């Protein structure tokens, strides 16, 4: 299971990678913004995306919208500090499958990933 993590914070990418490794997902690739995420996605093999919202170059919402234009089925989890209802709804409308507000616990991330993967 190859997972793409898109987040401009190197600290946050490390934390997510570390958490994924602890729950059994070690095949992970990283991108620091949406544009780089699209490039990584284009290289193929990605089966799930975990993305931040607030990023330079291309933010998470635009990234999700572009991804959904060509890939309607890949599971996408948004992990962000944005916790207002209108933000969550906007992300869901853009095509996010589920939503986690930072700071998260490993258990929350595990639960969301497992529910997305069915």
């Amino acid at each position, binding site marked *: 299971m190859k997972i793409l993590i898109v987040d401009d914070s*190197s600290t946050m990418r*490390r934390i997510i990678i570390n958490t994924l490794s602890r729950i059994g997902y070690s095949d992970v690739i990283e991108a620091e913004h949406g544009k780089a995420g699209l490039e990584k996605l284009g290289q193929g093999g990605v089966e799930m995306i975990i993305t931040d919202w607030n990023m*330079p170059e291309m933010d998470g919402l635009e990234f999700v919208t572009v991804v959904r234009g060509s890939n309607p089925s890949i599971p996408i989890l948004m992990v962000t*500090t944005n*916790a207002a209802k209108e*933000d*969550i709804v906007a992300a869901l409308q853009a095509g996010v499958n589920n939503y986690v507000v930072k700071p998260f616990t490993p258990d929350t991330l595990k639960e969301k990933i497992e529910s997305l993967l069915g």
Partner: protein
Amino acid sequence: MDQSEIDALLNTGANKPTGKSKKAKETPSETPIAAPKGAETAADKDGQVISEIDAVTAVTERETNKVMDQLDLISQLIAKQQDLVTRVMQQPDAQAEGVQQALHEIMTSGKTIQDKVYEAMDLMQFQDITRQKLERIVFHLRQIHDYIIELLGTGLKSEGERANISRTIAQTGTTPDEKRTHADSVVEEFKRSQQKG
């Protein structure tokens, strides 16, 4: 990084010559009304604050990653220790009940330390959250800065001082506490409405 390095980094950002001052000298026609000296200084200070906050977020991210490196190292050492203890437990000479019990306790405490290391790693999320809160402050400071400059009619903008903030920070960013909601309930509500539709 010690305090002197942090100060040096901050001073580099703060004392960097700004494009706007240069532009003002090169294009006097763009400054129909001369800004009062005190007000211009206040605007310059806004620019400095933006640079300083940007530098602080960069420093804290780098330093947080150093802490993460140390935690990673501790985690690896504990894993190595656990491996060694497991091997010792299997040795014929270590089968006495007291020895086995002691080794078992070492294993248990090692697991506890590992869990605490993971918890500490998870707590490092504060860095990203604080960074985004600071970016929000930078965004608002920049708005005030540009407003003052525009008000004074100097034609000066803070383009040269752009900190590396997210494009959508104005609309989103770290959500103020009074607007925070429970994500799971919103997701469930959205999914139900989609199913009905």
